């Protein structure tokens, strides 16, 4: 059976033109996909979590869910974390569960583009959908990101190469890569601007001062860049963790957002974060419409309260503040500083995941679930905020994240 227009559940590009062939409920071929996407579709059944586990022992699904709910209900300060690699329906249920439990809930943005959100909360954000870039952009800047390895089809589908309404293709666009090392992405650039690690804030500040007419001490390379930005007809900055994770974090992003704001005095300019996980944007969206806040939310007082640094997962774990944890579609033992995830091994941790992960290895309860976007349908939001419908292309007896969470909610309410 051939499934067309499948939405890829890997990165924030959320490519929706994947063609997947299944035979006897097995994926046998994947077309249009990048290497990672192909690996995800073709290996989705490899290393699966075979059965529900409590303390390493196989149990029935119901027993695992019962045990998980008992642990969470009796905790004084439970943490729910993950969400970015599952569908919005599951996210909405997870938020509801957090509310009922009086838990802290955080999603993976806090260790990814969380600083981007903090920057936006200070400065706002001048952005556009990816099609605007394809149709109009004559200057494309990738700053502190490496789409050639992380968002592999971004160049081809959305920015550098495609023909758009007002741009014929690659030769009508200037492409600049700004990074601390010559990444694979730098190879497709018209210009590569190499910067010293940890100097983005200084560089952007100088560029902004230049735009305000203070022209001293701006290195030639940056002056050429800012002149290009001023004089293009439609410019865009795509930025990544090079800005959010390095020294300055949200202030780096804040500066970049202000730079783009300033550039709109001269021309049309936008900026868009290169979101990592395929539905991390959705996690921020669902949390925002239900609680008002996109991440790091606490329900201990019966209403939502947010404060990254206080209710963010890394901080809550590093300070050992939580006494139980539910991890949904994420692997903090692989992604968090060891200092932070160690605490997950000390408390009863519950993991919902289709696969064996580092966190399932240290968890008290493991619950196998369907892989969203392959075995379960639902909504996901692309990095630019466009929602698309994930498809179910393989049948499974495993419940979706949303179904397991619904059960937990019923049990907590009972």
């Amino acid at each position: 059976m051939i499934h067309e227009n499948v939405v890829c559940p890997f990165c924030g590009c959320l490519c929706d033109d994947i063609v997947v062939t299944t035979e006897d409920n097995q994926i046998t071929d994947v077309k249009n996909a990048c290497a990672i996407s192909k690996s995800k579709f073709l290996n989705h059944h490899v290393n699966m979590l075979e059965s529900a586990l409590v303390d390493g022992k196989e149990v029935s699904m119901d027993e695992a869910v019962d045990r998980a709910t008992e642990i969470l209900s009796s905790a004084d300060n439970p943490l729910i974390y993950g969400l970015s690699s599952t569908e919005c329906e599951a996210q909405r249920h997870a938020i509801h569960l957090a509310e009922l439990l009086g838990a802290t809930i955080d999603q993976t943005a806090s260790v990814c583009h969380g600083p981007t959100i903090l920057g936006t909360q200070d400065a706002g954000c001048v952005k556009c959908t990816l099609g605007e870039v394809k149709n109009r952009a004559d200057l494309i800047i990738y700053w502190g990101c490496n789409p050639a390895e992380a968002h592999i089809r971004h160049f081809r589908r959305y920015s550098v190469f495609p023909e758009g309404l007002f741009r014929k293709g690659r030769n009508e666009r200037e492409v600049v890569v700004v990074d601390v090392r010559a990444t694979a992405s730098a190879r497709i650039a018209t210009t590569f601007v190499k910067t010293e690690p940890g100097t983005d804030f200084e560089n952007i500040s100088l560029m902004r001062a230049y735009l305000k007419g203070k022209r001293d001490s701006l290195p030639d390379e940056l002056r050429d860049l800012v002149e290009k930005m001023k004089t293009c007809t439609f410019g865009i900055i795509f930025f990544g963790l090079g800005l959010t994770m390095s020294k300055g974090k949200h202030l780096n992003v804040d500066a970049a957002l202000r730079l783009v704001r300033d550039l709109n005095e001269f021309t049309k300019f936008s900026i868009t974060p290169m979101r990592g996980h395929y539905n991390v944007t959705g996690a921020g969206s669902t949390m925002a419409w239900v609680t008002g806040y996109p991440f790091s939310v606490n329900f201990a007082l019966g209403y939502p309260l947010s404060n990254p640094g206080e209710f963010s997962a890394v901080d809550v774990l590093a300070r050992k503040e939580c006494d139980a944890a539910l991890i949904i579609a994420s692997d903090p033992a692989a992604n968090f500083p060891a200092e932070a995830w160690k605490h997950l091994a000390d408390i009863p941790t519950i993991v919902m995941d289709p696969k064996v992960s580092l966190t399932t290895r240290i968890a008290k309860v493991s619950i196998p679930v369907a892989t969203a976007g392959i075995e379960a349908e639902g909504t996901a939001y692309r990095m630019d905020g466009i929602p698309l419908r994930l498809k179910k292309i393989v049948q499974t007896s495993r419940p979706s994240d949303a179904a397991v969470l619904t059960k937990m909610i019923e049990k907590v309410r009972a």
Partner: protein
Amino acid sequence: MFLNPLLKTAIPVTAPCIAPDCFSGKSVKEIKALTVYYGNKEKHLQDLFDIKDDGQDVITLGSVPTVKYIGKGMTAGSIVVKGDAGMHLGAEMKGGRITVEGSVSDWAGAEMKGGEIFIAGNAGHCLGGAYRGSKSGMNKGLIVVKGNAGTEVGGLMKKGIIVVEGTLGDAAGCNMKGGTLICYGRPGDRLGAFMQRGSIVLYESPYLLPTFTYNAVYNPTWLRVFLRELAKTPYKIPITQGHIEGAYRRYNGDISELGKGEILVFQG
């Protein structure tokens, strides 16, 4: 009133009721019954503290590093913490005084509008700062820290004074719109990022952002008056005659923004 904590875990306690405004006019029995949260569990104050009426109006606490929002929004009276305090100490306070004999966690004095906070140990991040998204942080009042402070001290500050005798983390005075920040130790990097107005006074040489420009060496008249007044406070701030009469190098910035902020570096 003396509150001896009975807390043995790292579970955070939310207790904005520990404030003179809330205690005043209440009997000991009523105070004991005030609502606090231990994690997500609603409790009475007496469940978490051994409360003794010591006949004083001052609220005295033992070491409470996990207790948040002590003195939140208080308008008068006094709190003494005989040890460490948790996050949001004195947040949005309008008057009165808080003394911490140990160290405090992040957001102490955040968005405060008056009153005084004295910290004998270290302070965390966002001291006298703003909550995310706010238009302004500290807007009047005085904070004195004997030890070190974390990042983004005095972020979005509009009015008021912050004195840190130890070192500062990065981005102190970021987005500052007014007020004065004084540091005696090593200031962190990117001081005054996005600064619009206000003054940062330093007694060790900083690494300055390239968007601050040198103006002059001089002895600012306002600073003399200011330091003399500050010396009168009971906090033993190490102000010398030399500081009052000496010369300062003045830098202004952040020129990527309005650029009317100043950083004064003591020269001698």
